[in-house]
């Protein structure tokens, strides 16, 4: 416990609170905060759309390659985020496998746009969602799905109308983790999306740059980021994290 709280306390004690107001009123900070929140939320939504089905496959299907798939899902956890950013370039960059086609056909490039921020954050944060939702699906009672099948529901209907509502708390917990990780994403974002105020400069990027020139200001900025995310997490109440196993 102390191990987690003390560093935070250290930051709080040492933070130059006099810097707080001037920092907060900088237009760039507001912009970065807004962009961070918007892109982390979008990344979470994308992760939900893509990640929940993957989790379903991991938890419910009898595919041979499931453990390979599960290992692949954890790749973005181990890959240094900067390398992750390079990998994204290799696929979606102007010269990338898909990116070139996009560029030549629609004259559209992904890097250096807010879209790129969302993609980078999704790449890094989605595994958290997948792993949490898989856990929730494993814990859920699969017999409800049998019951739905005997009532004429195909796999997709069953998933949408029975499984998903049943594991909603687990999905919510996964989404929280995913959102938190997306909010803190730095390496892949700066590599793949670059850093431009208003379009791609999220809070962690602003913090990192501030560290170069104004370390005290950087600490204040990261505390602001923390405060916002903690406030959000606290608003999601206990019950979102699933039924309690408290033995009373």
């Amino acid at each position, binding site marked *: 416990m102390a191990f987690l709280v003390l560093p935070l306390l250290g930051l709080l004690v040492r933070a130059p609170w006099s810097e707080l107001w001037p920092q907060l009123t900088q237009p760039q900070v507001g912009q970065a905060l807004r962009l961070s929140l918007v892109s982390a939320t979008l990344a979470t939504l994308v992760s939900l759309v893509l990640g929940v089905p993957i989790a379903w496959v991991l938890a419910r299907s009898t595919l041979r390659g499931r453990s390979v798939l599960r290992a692949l899902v954890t790749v973005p956890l181990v890959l240094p985020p900067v390398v992750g950013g390079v990998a994204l370039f290799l696929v979606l960059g*102007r010269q990338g496998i898909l990116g070139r086609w996009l560029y030549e056909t629609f004259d559209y490039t992904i*890097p250096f746009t807010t879209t790129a921020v969302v993609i980078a954050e999704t790449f890094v944060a989605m595994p958290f969602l997948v792993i949490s939702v898989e856990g929730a699906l494993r814990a859920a009672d699969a017999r409800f799905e049998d019951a739905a099948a005997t009532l004429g529901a195909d796999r997709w209907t069953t998933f949408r109308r029975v499984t998903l509502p049943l594991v909603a708390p687990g999905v919510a917990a996964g989404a929280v983790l995913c959102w938190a990780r997306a909010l803190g994403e730095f390496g892949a974002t700066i590599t793949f999306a*670059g*850093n431009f105020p208003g379009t791609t*400069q999220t809070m962690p990027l602003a913090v990192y*740059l501030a*560290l*170069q020139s104004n370390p005290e200001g950087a600490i204040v900025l990261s505390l602001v980021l923390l405060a916002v995310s903690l406030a959000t997490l606290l608003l999601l109440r206990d019950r979102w994290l699933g039924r309690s196993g408290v033995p009373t």
Partner: protein
Amino acid sequence: GGSASPDAAGTSSSSGSGGELTGTLTVFAAASLTDVFTGLGDQLMAENPDLDITFNFAGSSALATQITQGAPADVFASANQTQMGVVTGAGLAEGDPTVFTENVLEIAVPPDNPADVTGLSDFADADLTLAVCAPDVPCGAAAEQVFEAAGITAQPDTLEEDVRAALTKVELGEVDAALVYASDVQAAGDQVEGIGFPEAEDAVNEYPICTLAGSQNPGAARAFLDLVESEAGQRALTDAGFRSPTS
């Protein structure tokens, strides 16, 4: 230049006035100096078999933070005056830092220069995809200076957190041009092409070096500083695309 020749070092006695160096030496150096300093360190260790040099390469600001937090460093080589200022401001430098090398900006373009970038004025072209460093980091501050001097309103697409990140994007062909240091263009080999421009002289980046007050091995620290400033050291730096201090 106090460095002895390998032969002399090999034959003189350990307590001799020739000053064979012993113990460990810890050098904190900016990441862009990795190759040059590793080479120089190997040379000094070859001359002094009982000397052990360890390097800590990282961003200058991380190094400055570590030094002010009491890191056991003997030498600090910063990629800019600002971070050196953090260390001297905390009273941790021994004597005044000296500038041992300089770096000037160059335009880096992908091989064959697909966007036909010719000079600094192309950075005002909003249609090109361009990378410059963020103003918070030295190469960004320098970029601001050259644009001001040239009277150009730059239209970058991204403000990179360091030169390396900008260069990666050039290497991958994801930007048409980036404003980076000449040494970085050199290090990237044939992955990028460099284009020099006259306004670069308005924003020369200076690399200061100093020994640190808390050093446990001041003799070796001094010797390393001398080696860097020696002819051999300067040659290694020049080969890597840096240039000798002009003043």
